[in-house]
């Protein structure tokens, strides 16, 4: 009788155990818009078919607090999330991500060195820079000085709402060389200088937050120029026949990474998904839909030549572009954001 009881209890525990583990489908979170449409086509749907299990995809607009709150709540309701470099660094230090098993991915040497971390696997190399509608603007902007020059090119400008990027671009518009931006910004005078330059453009700025917004602003003619993510621009050109341009000199590139949230009930499946999305032949399909650089070195080589020229990682496009200083922003994000918000409110 005792044995029977014990077996029953074990069975009950086992079923509840699997029930909680299987209760939720694998949930993958990315940045929405035409980027996520492309990911759905080449990663999400084929992976779900291969694994024989459904995959839910959601989108978000970033924010470290969102991830931290989910992990602190116990069992997070997201599994694999694509995060920006800053969120990767913060969360890895805080231990809110699962550690990556690099053997499953074929070893660290298969990836760009900057895309390798204990907690995350690089997903894309992406650029933020000036974009404009080539059909409407006869004289294309070439630099941040042009972006700031409302006499030469009249009209509103779109900028991502936040201190990150806005301050760097303001300094470049004020004549700071691209490779000196972060050393200038590290000084209090440099920060003052950036805000002063932003003052000049303030009446003409439309602020955006989600990555799909600048495309909409540009399409509707609400702004003549805007900062945007390069991949979405080329994606829209291809899918809707637009002639949007993107200015690579003076742009800032960064790496987004896949992470798995700590204590995710679908941890293993999530890691399998990341491995699938990092395979060279799967990843090399991305530039056809959206022009982001690929962290898997072999995948980069598999991309057809006609798409290569659009990628932020192509040698021509790297000229005059700088890499986002993640350390600077992990330290200064809160103080500069507070000042930026105060500046916005004035």
């Amino acid at each position, binding site marked *: 009788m005792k044995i029977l009881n014990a077996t029953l209890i074990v069975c009950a525990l086992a079923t509840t155990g699997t029930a909680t583990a299987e209760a939720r489908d694998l949930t993958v979170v990315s940045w929405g818009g035409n980027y996520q449409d492309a990911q759905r086509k080449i990663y999400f749907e084929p992976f779900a078919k291969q694994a024989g299990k459904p995959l839910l995809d959601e989108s978000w607009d970033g924010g*470290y607090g969102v991830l931290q*709150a989910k992990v602190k709540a116990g069992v997070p309701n997201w599994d694999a999330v694509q995060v920006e470099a800053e969120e990767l660094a913060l969360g890895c*230090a805080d*231990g809110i991500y699962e550690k990556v098993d690099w053997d499953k991915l074929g070893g660290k040497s298969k990836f760009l060195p900057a895309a390798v971390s204990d907690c995350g696997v690089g997903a894309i190399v992406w650029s933020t820079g000036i974009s404009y509608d080539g059909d409407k603007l006869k004289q294309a902007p070439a630099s941040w000085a042009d972006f700031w020059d409302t006499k030469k090119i009249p009209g509103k400008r779109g900028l991502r709402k936040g201190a990150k990027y806005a301050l760097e671009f303001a300094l470049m518009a004020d004549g700071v060389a691209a490779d000196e931006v972060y050393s200038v910004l590290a000084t209090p005078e440099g920060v003052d200088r950036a805000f002063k330059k932003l003052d000049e453009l303030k009446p003409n700025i439309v602020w955006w937050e989600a990555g799909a917004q600048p495309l909409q602003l540009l399409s509707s003619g*609400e702004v003549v120029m805007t900062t945007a993510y390069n991949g979405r621009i080329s994606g829209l050109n291809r899918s809707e026949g637009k002639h949007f341009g993107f200015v690579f000199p003076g742009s800032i590139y960064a790496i987004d990474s896949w992470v798995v949230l700590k204590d995710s009930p679908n941890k293993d499946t999530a890691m399998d998904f990341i491995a699938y999305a990092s395979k060279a032949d799967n990843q090399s399909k991305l530039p056809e839909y959206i022009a982001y650089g690929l962290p898997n070195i072999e995948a980069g080589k598999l991309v057809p030549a006609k798409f290569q020229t659009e990628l932020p990682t192509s040698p021509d496009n790297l000229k005059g572009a700088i890499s986002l200083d993640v350390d600077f922003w992990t*330290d200064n994000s809160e103080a500069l954001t507070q*000042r930026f918000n*105060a500046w*916005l409110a004035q």
Partner: protein
Amino acid sequence: MNAPRLSKQVISLALVAPLLLFLIVFFALPLVTMMKSAVSDPVAARTLPATARSVSSWNRTSPPTVEMQAAFVADLRQISDDQLFGDLVRRLNSAKSGFRTLMPKTRKAALDTAGSIDLVALDKRWGDISYWQAVSVAASSTITDRNLLAAVDLQRDASGAIASLPADASANKAIMLRTFVMALTVTGACVLIGFPFAMIAASVDGWKRQLLLGAVLLPLWTSLLVRTAAWFILLQDRGLINSVLMQSGVTSSPIPLIFNRAGVIIAMTHVLLPFMVLPIFSVLIGIPKNLMPAAASLGAHPVRAFLNVLLPLGLRGVVSGSLLVFMSALGYYITPALIGGAKDQMISSVIAYYATGAANWGMAGALGLVLLAATMILYAIYLRLSSERETSP
């Protein structure tokens, strides 16, 4: 107390128990947690006990002593929980930028080497006294007024006295004031549109009333986000409103209706209008229909009859509608974010930044607390005024 009465009380208590439980779990507890997070600051005192002891004798102006440095390194070696360490780093970095990169580096050095460490040689920032001041302030107490002060643009300076933050560093007070002004404007606009609308709806019957109420209710059943997006399409420079105005020749260039205050007020008034119309309508419908003709038969001009008869009777609806609209408007977030410009953001967007962006729950709690307190004060004033009006002849 006799037995039947007691059992009756038990039964009635059992009947309200679900509601009571719901209120405690979903209303009282979160509120208390929020208030607590605004003032509680235990993480540094908990993780740096030896440092806390050794800085208690430090005057916060002289260079850090060797004992302090050794105690700090010893404390760092004790922390095994990464998430706890993350909380500590976030707490310190919000007081002084730089700890985010400094702390992991120092902790790694502390764990890698066994003996004493020259912190200044490891990173020159440890020679900067302001970093030690931040550590000392954080470690010496488990409660703090830092967040509450920062929520109203104040801080404690090095000597501990309360001083205002530099004008360009924080604008919480201005944003808080703007939130109240915008909520009041929307409430005013809702009264101006809602009262006549409710009057008309109450004065007709049959399908006309159904149609009018449907016009109010239908938007209420549509998602807030959808309604806001619809206003975005209508208000933009090449949107429906501006195209009609420009084609009919009223204006030659588009009127700026989006990314400014006007657009936000228009959209918020539309979204909140049902909360004004329905309470007024329900009061007006109960007023006997013969009162207005009676006033007219006594020789009152329609305007006078409205001011002396209908308005005072309908005021109860206006009052409850205004409260509903004002309170809802205070917390608005999506509509100003999508339709408004940088100068139209309300306090909830700042709270959202601290909660979801910076993971600074203390600051988010403090701002929420200040908003709650300000709202309570306004509500108290309002109760005072409305009770005075009721007692006056």
